[in-house]
């Protein structure tokens, strides 16, 4: 009998093979808009997005059959705000600028940070972070009420530790602080841990299945900081956070996102209780190798290249990559197939279609590849 998306994900998270390989995808707001317009008729009547601030599940997730729905909270709600002005300041005092770019599908915007509220040492002691109690939990309650029985629900509390520090203090300064001004680094990172942990508790109370923590710790081919700096400065905070979340509900699963190359610390991530690793960027780490070395101890989520194959490959390249990843990463479960990031505006529409066609073609267990 066919499984619900939720059962499919639960089985995969238990490192067993469900009926099909679970999958999902997300889009940058511009692609989301284009697709929602294109499929306007088909999504009519589907319960979807109501709150603009909280990126996350939309009607498209349901239409496309994604197995997991996302609920975005925390610092990353600062991304991609749809404002009139080309700069805005979020609840943390972070100043964002919309940077336009041109693609085959029109003009899009990335939001980049141009003002760091804690760049100045003197601002740190008097800084008051936003209050997690001010977050609108109604959005997650609504999604969980509508979809929580059928779908696997992932609450996002990303920019959890080091990422928040970078955004508040500045990219360059935070890199220096993490090895030189450790007191400052601890102070700011702990503030973010407190905030995101409280949000995590709220999301657990609402009934999410998975919580997604994130800190970009990888460059393209090397860690951003040494493994020993990570172990000294960041890992204990991750361990604390995950420990508290699992204490709150021992069935809660934890996903961790870091772009880039992070292989030297995957064992550390497993040790502190990460269940699912995202996104395993194939430009940085070979997914098949990661599966072989770590796949029994940690699940894998992602692996389809949004940096090369989806934007620059052909539809045939996309199909080949999906087939290859299912072949090498799906055996034994523990695998959630997805693009390695939001599908970007420079991705040709044929490639988006090719992605979905290929998933449908190859996702059945037992695998036939």
């Amino acid at each position, binding site marked *: 009998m066919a499984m619900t998306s939720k059962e499919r994900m639960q089985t995969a998270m238990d490192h067993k093979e469900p009926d099909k390989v679970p999958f999902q995808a997300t889009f940058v707001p511009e692609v989301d808009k284009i697709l929602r317009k294109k499929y306007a008729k088909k999504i009519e009547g589907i319960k979807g997005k109501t709150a603009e601030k909280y990126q996350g599940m939309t009607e498209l997730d349901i239409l496309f059959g994604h197995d997991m729905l996302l609920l975005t909270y925390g610092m990353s709600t600062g991304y991609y705000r749809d404002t009139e002005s080309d700069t805005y300041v979020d609840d943390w005092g972070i100043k964002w*600028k919309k*940077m*336009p*770019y041109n*693609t085959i599908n029109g003009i*899009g915007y*990335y939001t*980049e940070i*141009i003002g760091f509220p804690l760049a100045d040492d003197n601002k740190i002691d008097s800084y008051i972070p936003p209050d997690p109690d001010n977050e609108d939990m109604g959005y997650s309650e609504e999604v969980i009420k509508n979809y929580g029985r059928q779908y696997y629900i992932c609450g996002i509390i990303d920019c959890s530790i080091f990422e928040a520090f970078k955004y508040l203090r500045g*990219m*360059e300064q935070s*890199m*220096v602080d*993490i*090895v*030189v001004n450790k007191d400052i680094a601890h102070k700011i990172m702990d503030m973010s841990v407190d905030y995101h942990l409280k949000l995590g508790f709220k999301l657990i109370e609402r009934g999410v299945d998975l919580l997604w923590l994130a800190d970009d710790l990888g*460059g*393209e*081919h*090397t*860690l*951003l*900081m*040494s493994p020993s*700096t990570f172990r000294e400065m960041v890992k204990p905070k991750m361990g604390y956070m995950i420990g508290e979340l699992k204490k709150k509900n021992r069935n809660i699963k934890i996903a961790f996102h870091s772009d880039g190359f992070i292989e030297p610390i995957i064992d550390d991530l497993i040790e502190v209780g990460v269940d699912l690793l995202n996104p395993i960027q194939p*430009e940085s780490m070979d997914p098949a190798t990661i599966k072989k070395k770590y796949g029994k101890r940690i699940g894998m989520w992602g692996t389809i290249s949004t*940096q*090369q194959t989806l*934007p*620059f490959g052909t539809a045939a390249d996309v199909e080949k990559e999906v087939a290859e990843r299912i072949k090498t990463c799906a055996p034994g479960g523990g695998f959630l197939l997805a693009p390695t990031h939001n599908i*970007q*505006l*420079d991705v040709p529409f044929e490639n988006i279609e090719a992605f979905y066609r290929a998933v449908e073609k190859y996702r059945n267990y037992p695998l036939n590849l």
Partner: protein
Amino acid sequence: MTAEEIKKELYENVLNGDFDLTQEIAQKVLSENMDPLEAINTALVPAIELVGEKFGKKEYFLPDLMRSANAMKNALAVFEKEIKARGIERKSSGKVVIGTVKGDIHEIGKSIVASLLTAKGFDVFDLGVDVDSESFIKKVLEEKADILAMSALLPITMPYQAKVIEDLKAKGLRTGIKVMVGGSPVTQEHADRIGADGYADNAVSAVKLAEKLMLKS
């Protein structure tokens, strides 16, 4: 302290990235009547080269590289001021105009390349981030630059590196300048495809590339 000891102190200071103390040590070098040029060449450059080597071997990581680069910059500022005051010329390794291309405000990688180039004696004109083609070309002409170095950290800003090269061609300036490109999504294939003269995947190899390109020019 002997001159050798002070030089060693400066070398180790850069190697360890204790940048709060660097200026003081650099001043000590000068107060001992040591030649600032010699201090640059025999302490700063070898130290930062070793830092680069360690970075390449993954013994050092970005924070280590940055604190060493900061230390080096602090010392360099002291020495360059003195060099100017004494009216001596530091032999230039070449003129480089550098920046992150339009639409992209990622700074760190580009700035590290700029610092290392400066340490190796290049005259570096850092235009910052989000730099448009006109500004690159204007500066190249103004400074009669030998090398144009462009960084792009996003797949969607990579094509702008090609645009600048096309604009240089359209203005008949392409043959007079070497173009190097970098940034994490940038590859050798991309560099070849857009007709750049060189690509480097990290700051240390970027300096080596710049030195190689100067030999060719």
